[in-house]
């Protein structure tokens, strides 16, 4: 092979692969368009339109649905969801961080393996099976409730704090999975440099470790918030309408369970959720970027 041929091959090599790489993305784009794009457009259209009763009637553009979604019981449900998500995300962040730190500093590799495997399973254990597991354990007639006499102490699983407890079951493992790589990224030399500069263990955490981890922790917090905010099946199976949550309200309006013809308000509430999720992502992405730069 002469030099010219070599150069020609070198130049055409990557080009030959590029079109193939582009085509490989097409199925993904199609899936996103169908599974995400079309419903999102339908939701957006429905949130800003209303139609007269009866088939084939005229469609009117309106902001009334959005206004309604931010009033009365709907707004209470939105606030309820935000409150539940903030509470569970906060507790999970703290507990998850402590648990992950214990795992990272453990000298037993098996412990790390076991906790990570368990976290991977538990973080995805939700919905009706999770609700049932808690009802059987800590419900009014649950094993632990009866055994420990929790009902006499005023415990109720079917309350805000009961729901918090159930959500923690999958949010804490999710936080462990999220934060453990960041804790691994904390360099031992930062701790030694801090100690060498006169910092105690507390000062190291206060002035070095937590500030370095902050973007990652906030990112994890945001992820947990989003996860709790969007959870539906577990709450539905456990508390029904006794704890106002936006996901339950959306289900009610779309299903026509309470008021008929409120479907478009349900779509407006979905749009409210998208806005909240969008705000959350707007915080999350830059934080993740910064964290990735520090904790290489």
């Amino acid at each position: 092979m002469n030099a010219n041929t070599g150069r020609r091959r070198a130049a055409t090599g990557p080009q030959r692969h590029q079109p193939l790489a582009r085509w490989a993305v097409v199925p993904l784009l199609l899936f996103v368009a169908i599974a995400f794009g079309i419903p999102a457009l339908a939701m957006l259209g429905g949130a800003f339109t209303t139609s007269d009763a009866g088939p084939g009637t005229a469609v009117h553009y309106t902001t009334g649905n959005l206004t309604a979604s931010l009033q009365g019981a709907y707004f209470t449900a939105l606030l309820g969801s935000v409150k539940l998500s903030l509470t569970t995300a906060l507790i999970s962040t703290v507990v998850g961080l402590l648990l992950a730190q214990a795992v990272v500093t453990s000298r037993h590799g098996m412990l790390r393996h076991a906790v990570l495997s368990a976290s991977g399973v538990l973080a995805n254990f939700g919905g009706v099976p999770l609700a049932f597991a808690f009802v059987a354990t800590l419900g009014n007639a649950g094993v632990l409730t009866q055994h420990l006499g929790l009902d006499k102490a005023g415990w109720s699983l079917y309350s805000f704090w009961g729901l918090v407890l159930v959500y923690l079951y999958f949010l804490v493992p999710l936080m462990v999975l999220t934060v453990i790589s960041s804790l691994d990224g904390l360099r031992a030399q930062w701790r030694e440099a801090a100690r060498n500069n006169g910092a105690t263990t507390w000062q190291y955490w206060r002035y070095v470790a937590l500030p370095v981890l902050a973007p990652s922790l906030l990112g994890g917090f945001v992820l947990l918030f989003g996860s709790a905010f969007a959870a539906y099946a577990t709450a539905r199976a456990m508390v029904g309408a006794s704890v106002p949550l936006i996901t339950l309200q959306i289900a009610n309006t779309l299903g026509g369970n309470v008021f008929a013809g409120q479907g478009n308000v349900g779509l407006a509430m979905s749009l409210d959720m998208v806005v909240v999720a969008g705000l959350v992502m707007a915080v999350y992405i830059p934080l993740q970027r910064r964290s990735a730069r520090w904790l290489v």
Partner: protein
Amino acid sequence: MSTSAATTAPPAAATAQETSATVEFRQVRRAFGAAVALDGLDLAVRPGELLALLGPSGCGKTTALRMLAGFETPDFGDVMVDGEDVTAVPAHRRDAGMVFQSYSLFPHLSAADNVAFGLRMRKIGVAERRARAAELLELVGLPQHGDRYPHQLSGGQQQRIALARALALRPRVLLLDEPLSALDAKVRLTLREEIRRLQRELAITTLFVTHDQEEALSMADRVAVMHAGRLEQCAEPAELYAHPATAFVAEFVGTMNRIPGRTGDDGSVVEVLGRRLPVDGPQAAPHREVEVLVRPEAVELLADEEGKARVTGTMFLGALTRITVRLADGTVVKADMTTHAAATFPAGAAVTVGLPDHPVLIDERRA
């Protein structure tokens, strides 16, 4: 580094000079499981001295440094600073500034805040912290870089900031753990000189860990060569090079030829290349097959058509050229000479190899 930084006498200098400390390792032993990192290390560092700990990977030099910093605890023995036993003193109270191999600047703090970190831990006021940080940034030649974050600085700049941070608390001892090994060759040379200049200006007792013999020989007042957790020899660079105490030191520091020889009747003389030379250092039993250790610059070559040795290659080193010669018995010998003189020894040339009338080190013959 700016000229002003190089010529300005730092206010910290006087203070540091007064507080120069002695450091002493007494019979220090440390094992990690079955691996013995330090095996009874005895070493004393003089006040204001720069002592290089030199040795191959795993010889225990970093363990010794970390022990002085308080990051490792000896299984046995004592670590003394100014005659005071600091073995049980926690790391954050050791009064020893350390520079790490991989900079280890705090990524969320600016250069000035990194430098002032120790002062902040001591709850020094903001104004004083800023003034001291500015003074140290000036000292390391980066007065304009205080607002930059570590990721905005080059490797050399980061290491200078790390050096400033290590000096911020006016430590009694400065510890440098391979501070130049992550830098490229040119920056390494510059920073080598900067560190030496600063160390002399501040007259601070300094321990410098390195596996680079050139770095150790060019920077240190004394070099301590370590091997398998033990101190082989501690001496000034010239002494170490000219009179290595052991075969390990001789081979680790600089290049060394091993030429087959045989000891004489009383072991104080060795026969090598047809000559009888006095033995320097440890002797061997009489009439024993040994190897004679000779530096390339001590080897003499003579162009000789009847010579049994052959030149097999040359390596241009600038002013010098290293000539590789194969003796009749297959032994390979390297000889250094001026590049001009080396031109008369082309590859394949027949030569005679000679040695000067100096005492030589011997070692057991290798299989």
